């Protein structure tokens, strides 16, 4: 009888990668949830009366500009027994959700130029930190760019993936037919694997830009008299076309590689048998190759969908991120501390979390659909 002995060697071998992924993958995931659902910066309670113990009528975030509606002067007793004059301000402002907040706040919480004269101020301090909140998620969903970003991202997926899969299967079949120069074709077809999304976007800018190659071709064909401006705010559909082409051009190779791997696993005898029984090329493809290729296609579909939800640099290169927006660009825009961004990691984390959620949902959906089909076929 073989004695069971726990071999430690494999555990020691996987330990480094385990630790690495725990620190640089699992922890950031937890941190991401924290950012999206925990409020860390203080908020300022707005009171119904100019007194510390008054009721809270609303809250304001830091750095919000407020209008000063009214002010009262009070004497405040200091710890050493003396008194000093302090002001309470009745302020009015809108929260990020658009609700009106009006009430009293102490002067220490505001930055105000002149206590007696200024009619605007800015919230600079508050109280409390670390509490669960859905504010960021609500604010994300209510943001008008959120819907636009989601729609554009989904539209791109619906347009790109079918073209990509048909093209990838064709490319894989061409490679499988063992032409002379096969190795050269493989190299050429694989080149886009190493091309970054940013470079791919720029490549297609040379084609779609006003003085670009597409206009050159169209003019040489006599279809247009002068260059047409494809990439302009009025031509969103042309921007979509350019992004779709760039993504199909760049990201089809990965699908092709997965499909080729799948094709290689199909026994030759199956196809030969099909040919022997007089099945046409299309029939063999439809009834032998594609069904056997399903697991590979499923993996490729999940991978490509998840990647498609992150489409980013291509969009920035082609649209400048201004006319069209996608989910990943919104994440970047909220995070970016530069002049075009909002420097708000919480909102960025909310977007990132949403991308994760929707990617997972699609992955589960694909896995479910294929399984049910198999089960249905078995019955």
């Amino acid at each position: 009888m073989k004695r069971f002995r726990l071999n430690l060697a494999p555990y020691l071998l996987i330990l480094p990668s385990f630790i690495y992924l725990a620190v640089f993958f699992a922890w950031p995931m937890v941190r991401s949830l924290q950012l999206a659902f925990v409020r860390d910066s203080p908020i300022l309670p707005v009171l119904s009366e100019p007194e510390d113990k008054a009721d809270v009528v609303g809250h304001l975030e830091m750095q919000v500009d407020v209008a000063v509606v009214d002010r009262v002067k009070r004497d405040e007793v200091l710890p050493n027994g003396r008194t000093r004059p302090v002001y309470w301000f009745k302020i009015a402002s809108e929260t990020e959700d658009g609700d009106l907040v009006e009430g009293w706040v102490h002067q220490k919480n505001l930055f105000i130029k002149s206590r007696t004269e200024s009619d605007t101020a800015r919230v600079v301090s508050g109280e409390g930190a670390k509490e669960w909140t859905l504010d960021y998620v609500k604010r994300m969903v209510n943001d008008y760019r959120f819907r636009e970003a989601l729609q554009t991202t989904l539209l791109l997926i619906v347009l790109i993936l079918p073209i990509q899969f048909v093209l990838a299967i064709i490319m894989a079949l061409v490679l499988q037919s063992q032409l002379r120069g096969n190795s050269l074709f493989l190299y050429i077809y694989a080149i886009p694997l190493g091309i970054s999304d940013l470079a791919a976007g720029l490549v297609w800018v040379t084609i779609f830009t006003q003085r670009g190659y597409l206009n050159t071709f169209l003019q040489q064909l006599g279809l247009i008299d002068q260059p047409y401006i494809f990439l302009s705010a009025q031509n969103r559909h042309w921007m979509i076309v350019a992004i779709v082409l760039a993504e199909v051009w760049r990201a089809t190779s990965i699908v092709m590689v997965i499909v080729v791997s799948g094709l290689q696993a199909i026994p030759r005898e199956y196809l030969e048998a099909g040919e022997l029984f007089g099945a046409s090329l299309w029939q063999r493809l439809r009834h032998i190759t594609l069904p056997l290729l399903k697991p590979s296609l499923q993996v490729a579909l999940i991978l490509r969908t998840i990647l498609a939800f992150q489409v980013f640099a291509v969009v920035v290169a082609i649209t400048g991120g201004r006319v069209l927006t996608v989910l990943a660009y919104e994440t970047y825009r909220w995070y970016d501390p530069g002049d075009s961004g909002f420097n708000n990691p919480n909102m960025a984390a909310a977007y990132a979390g949403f991308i994760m959620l929707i990617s997972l949902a699609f992955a589960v959906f694909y896995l479910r659909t294929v399984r049910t089909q198999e089960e249905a076929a078995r019955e």
Partner: protein
Amino acid sequence: MTTRALDPVQRRAIRRRQLNRAGVYALAILIALWILLPIWLIGTMAFSTRSDVYGFPKQMAPIPFTTDTMQFFINQPGILDGTRNSIVVAVLTLALSTLIAAPAGYAISRYVFVGRDAFRLSILAVRAFPIVILAVPLAVTFIEWGMFDKVYSVALMHTALTLPTTILVVSSVFASVPREFEEAAKVFGCNAYQAFMRVVLPLVLPGIAASAIFTFVMSWNEVFAATLLTIRNRTLPALILYQLNKSSLQFQYAGGFFMLVPSLIFIFFIRRYLFNMWGQITK
């Protein structure tokens, strides 16, 4: 002539085969053009004169040929530093990722142990996770740890991104070396270490090198996380992305071409290993 001996049916069959063959060739070449033509066009722009870059209609080849546009791009402030940062990040990523992944890949391919499938599965899941999700919290964490805007912190991020792929690829490379080779070496008097160094390592080295090159390319190309993690020490793609809105066409074309050149070279070296790399994931 042998064809005279064929009956018409056979002749028709052969002709149809040849036609099919020609059709497949035409298709193959068409697809190759679809991929190569855009690269040729941006290459043309990158080596055209300034007036040709802005001119219309566009020319199909860089005549007159000039390196002015490329030089203009390279001499822009920050480009050389950005290129250096990108190379440093990619080399660090490659080294870290390969060093950490190799033992794990070996363990997965050679040992049967409790939790092996769970580990494999979680690696696959991690592999599929979007970098967009990881980048934001990591950037915040790095700020808290005082590691923000450092070249090495981008490399740490990229390693988290590439590690799962590298583990899977390395394990498939090890799996392609039969266990018997190792055992034979032990029979002939090698200890476990010698058997690994003298027999297994030489056989897996090309595959691991290919995976390392792929890691390099992935890191060289990555833009989203690099943009979030750096301000002054930007990598090349992050720098180009950041300057995109305020940059000239010359900058964009030359920059785009400059970024895709490594892919042309590196994919050539690893093309035979691509299916090793990705075949694994479908199993």
